[in-house]
């Protein structure tokens, strides 16, 4: 990490001002999250009289009921299946297409690349009704594929671009050597390009995993039975059912975002780099 003004000695006053500002803002970020997690341990009455403090009487059952129930795990599983399918399909389809754009000269390649880049300009929401009708007519409503396919398609522009730029920057000599040895494109892709592409595979993977894991509008439109719901839909149903029993809703929110938070802290470097680089590089 570089330091911008390391050459300046900060006065104590500046330092205090700095830390006070940072701590206040950190509190605004963290307090809602902490009170949510703690609220899940309270009774409704406790929550009402004492939303900020520690629970008077820890209601572990709020959490254990959820964790020993089937509902939570089913939603997590659905989200995971959809995300894994999305990531796998995105990486394989876009890496292959990007490879041709990076290495193969063919008529209309620039035109085709620009065609894919149209996808970067508008969100899936703009075409959500025709998408619904298409998925319905294909018989894919209420299936994982009904969510996965549009999701992958709308992510293609960005992932193709990331892969193509990466492939193009691999050292030229590799290519020369391989082709002199009589290696064809497809073998080159498998044995040279892909093994060298771990960083960009990770970036594309993280971006598409996070956006799939958090996605709401596509599953909302394409899935109609609760057994298929990924967690963002499931949590809204749960909230609808339990209404003002906030302590249960808070516990449910906590356990659903916990995996995200744990993974984030474990792999923070990769995730931050992936999400910002994914944005910047493309």
């Amino acid at each position, binding site marked *: 990490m570089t330091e911008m003004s390391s050459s300046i000695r900060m006065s104590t006053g500046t330092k205090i001002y700095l830390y006070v500002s940072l701590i206040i803002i950190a509190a605004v970020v963290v307090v809602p999250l902490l009170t949510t997690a703690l609220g899940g341990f309270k009774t409704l009455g406790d929550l009402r009289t004492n939303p900020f403090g520690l629970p008077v009487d820890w209601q572990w059952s709020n959490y254990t009921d959820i964790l020993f129930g089937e509902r939570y795990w089913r939603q997590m599983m659905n989200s995971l299946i959809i995300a894994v399918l999305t990531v796998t399909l995105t990486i394989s389809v876009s890496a292959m297409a990007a490879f041709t754009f990076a290495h193969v000269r063919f008529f209309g390649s620039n035109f085709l690349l620009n065609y894919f880049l149209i996808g970067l300009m508008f969100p899936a929401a703009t*075409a959500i*009704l025709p998408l619904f009708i298409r998925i319905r007519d294909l018989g894919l409503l209420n299936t994982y594929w009904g969510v996965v396919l549009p999701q992958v398609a709308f992510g293609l522009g960005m992932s193709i671009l990331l892969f193509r730029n990466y492939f193009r920057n691999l050292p030229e000599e590799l290519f020369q050597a391989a082709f002199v040895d009589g290696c064809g494109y497809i073998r080159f892709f498998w044995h040279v390009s892909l093994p060298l592409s771990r960083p960009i595979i990770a970036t594309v993977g993280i971006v598409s995993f996070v956006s799939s894991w958090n996605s709401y509008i596509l599953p909302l439109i394409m899935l109609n039975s609760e057994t298929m719901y990924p967690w963002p839909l499931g949590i809204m149903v749960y909230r609808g059912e339990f209404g003002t029993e906030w302590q249960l809703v808070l516990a449910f929110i906590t356990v659903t975002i916990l995996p995200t938070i744990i993974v984030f802290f474990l792999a923070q470097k990769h995730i931050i780099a992936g999400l910002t680089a994914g944005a910047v590089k493309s």
Partner: protein
Amino acid sequence: MTNFSATTAAGPVAEARPSARRKSPTVRGRLPVLVLFLPPALLLFTIFVILPMGEAAFYSLYRWDGYGLPTQFVGLRNFEVLFKNSAFLTALKNNFLIIVVSLVFQIPLALWLATMLATRIKGVVFFRLIFFLPYVLADVAAGLIWRFVYDGDYGLFAAIAGLLGVETPYVLADKDLAIYAVLAVIVWKYFGFHMMLFIAGLQSLDRSVLEAAEIDGATGWQKFRFVTLPLLSSTLRLSVFFAVVGSLQLFDMIMPLTGGGPFNSTQTMVTFLYNFGVTRMQVGLGSAVGVVLFVICVTLAFSYKRIFMRHD
């Protein structure tokens, strides 16, 4: 998460490099690779992105409930209805307001934090992490958490009002206040992402320029205003682009907070599309919203490219 990215923002797109990289045409297997590698992406993209967009334009000229074939041609009636609908006009206004708040509040906040957190003070990494955390959470989760925070009976706002001895505000139920409550959540969720962009930008700056300015006796503010800020301009543009694009597709966070209410005061274009087009299966009207959104996005992307890309 944004579905789109800033290609349009970040670079001349498909300009072929000088042919240095082009391979000799004798390489084996050019045809097989094209036949195997291109069609999957091409098919997926055409079927699920391009065709639906074209169909949206087509359906927007019909009154249709989505069953059978669209037969009731109404011309531009759907657009007329749309621009006379007060909920849609509120939605447009809200989308604009979100952009304004991002530009005048969120981005300066992110920039200010980035300049602090690009220094060598203790705890930098910790603060960066905390500020970035809301960005990784799903919009739906963030929305629900803040619905609790704002809750007038059980939430944190109720408690704070209790402490201050004032009447409990029900912010999300108040048609004048709700949109500001939503805006606050948007800033809470996204400032960390913009901050991270700026930190990355600051770290790639050429330090010698700043040192030169210091030697010339520039004050902290002067250095920031006349050296750092101009050098950050490409990051700044990127950040503006994300803010604009993100605000245009805002949906996930509104649903758990207000669902677009009370009295449609917090609708955005996409919540309007959902509430009026999807749930009532008014395919024509909903598609018209899609077309309006599409036109806005494409116009922004192109004008952005035209205005800014010349300099890069």
